[in-house]
């Protein structure tokens, strides 16, 4: 793992990986959307409105998955002080918040025709809303300090503390009477959803995951480049402050 701690190596690897991730994500999401919107069958009870599921459910899975990734990266940052872990966690947070928002909005749009209400305070919806606020709290915390490392460390502790919400989200439909339906895919005894609906769902889910990794790599690369730019700006201001010429050291070019 520490082999990948070198930012230069990470930049090279991610540059190689990025096109593959991006194109497979685009392909899978396109295929998934075609399957979901046109080929998958309508539900016997819900009719065509069930097709919101193919956006809502993968977004919900990603919301929890991204938090788990963020918490794991935070744990790696706290335990091993892995240099890229902080950057990974900070980069993942807005993506997770975005997926959670998509999940909540799509679910709300689905709930109105199906349940007759835009929102209900049952355990599943409430715990996902809490997850959304945990993401926002994390983003606020890491940006609240003048020194970025202090922010990352504080955020890391918060991310690890908030992991307790993930099992609550997962099992909320089992532990409480909820309007939200119980698990149909990830359950003991296997999925209860029809295969003609399961396959588009899984394709969309994998597409969303590849989308997440694409965006995560882009954000991490951007963060590393921004750090270099800051360092170069400091170096440049240092140079202009000194009237005497000084030997130019090796630049911070990652390719060197």
């Amino acid at each position, binding site marked *: 793992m520490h082999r990948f701690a070198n930012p230069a190596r990470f930049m090279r690897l991610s540059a190689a990986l990025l096109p593959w991730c991006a194109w497979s994500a685009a392909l899978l999401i396109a295929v998934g959307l075609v399957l979901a919107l046109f080929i998958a069958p309508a539900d016997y009870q819900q009719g065509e409105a069930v097709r919101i599921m193919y956006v809502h459910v993968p977004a919900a899975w990603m919301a929890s998955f991204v938090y788990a990734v963020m918490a794991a990266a935070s744990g790696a940052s*706290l335990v091993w002080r892995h240099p890229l872990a902080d950057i990974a966690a900070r980069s993942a947070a807005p993506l997770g918040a975005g997926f959670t928002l998509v999940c909540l909005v799509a679910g709300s749009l689905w709930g109105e025709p199906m349940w007759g209400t835009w929102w209900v305070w049952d355990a599943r919806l*409430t715990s996902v809303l*809490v997850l959304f*606020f*945990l993401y*926002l*709290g994390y983003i*606020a*915390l890491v940006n*609240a*300090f*003048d020194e970025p490392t*202090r*922010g990352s*460390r*504080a955020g890391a*502790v*918060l991310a*690890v*503390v*908030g992991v307790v*919400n993930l099992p*609550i989200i997962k099992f909320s439909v089992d532990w409480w009477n909820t309007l939200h339906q119980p698990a149909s895919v990830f359950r003991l005894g296997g999925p209860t959803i029809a295969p003609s609906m399961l396959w588009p769902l899984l394709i969309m889910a994998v597409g969303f995951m590849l989308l997440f990794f694409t965006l995560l790599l882009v954000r991490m690369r951007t963060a590393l480049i921004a750090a270099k730019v800051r360092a170069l700006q400091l170096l440049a201001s240092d140079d202009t402050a000194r009237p005497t010429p000084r030997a130019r050291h090796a630049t911070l070019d990652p390719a060197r």
Partner: protein
Amino acid sequence: MSFRCLVARDLRLAFRQGGDAAMVAAFFVLTVILFPFGVGPGPELLQRIAPGVVWVTALLAALLSLERLFLADYEDGSLEALALMKLPLEVQVVAKCLAHWLVTGLPLTLLAPLLALLLHLEAGGYVALVAGMALGTPTLSLIGAIGAALTLGARRGGVLLSLLVLPLYIPVLIFGVAACEAAAAGLAARPHLLLLAAFFALALALAPFAAAAGLRQALE
């Protein structure tokens, strides 16, 4: 310095300052009193919302004083000295939370039945209200200590602290209100109170470690 010394020190500082406990209690009373003005004095409505109003207002009142849990020590350098002591930082966090609870949580717990009376809470709900708050307010002190430690030195730390602590406190709020409402309706409050006790035990076991980690980062 032992655990007892730390608690005594914090209590002495709080009483010398004087204002903190009184302000928290005053905020609690004033905010609860606002509700009859806001929703009308009809006893049925006030009775329905009494447990929720008392709990939420107690939560907000306790949040007011959380920011200063570690701030004074951090700013004058005592925190660095405390971190160097033989007593583990985690135990010191528990000591500070205990002192904080004695100064803010305990007065809130004792005032709650009086305010519930003003909101016409049914007779059966008072014991569950006090029991629930006696379990919930220490949990708030512990969870709040995590937030207070993480936001040391942050910009707009007070508001940020609220943003961090409130989502973590929602389960306690849910079960505290449920206990009071169940008892007021004549049902069993025991399951809810047992869950509140479980949250307290969990917070007592885990929150000191998170808060101490936050303190160590603040001191780096």
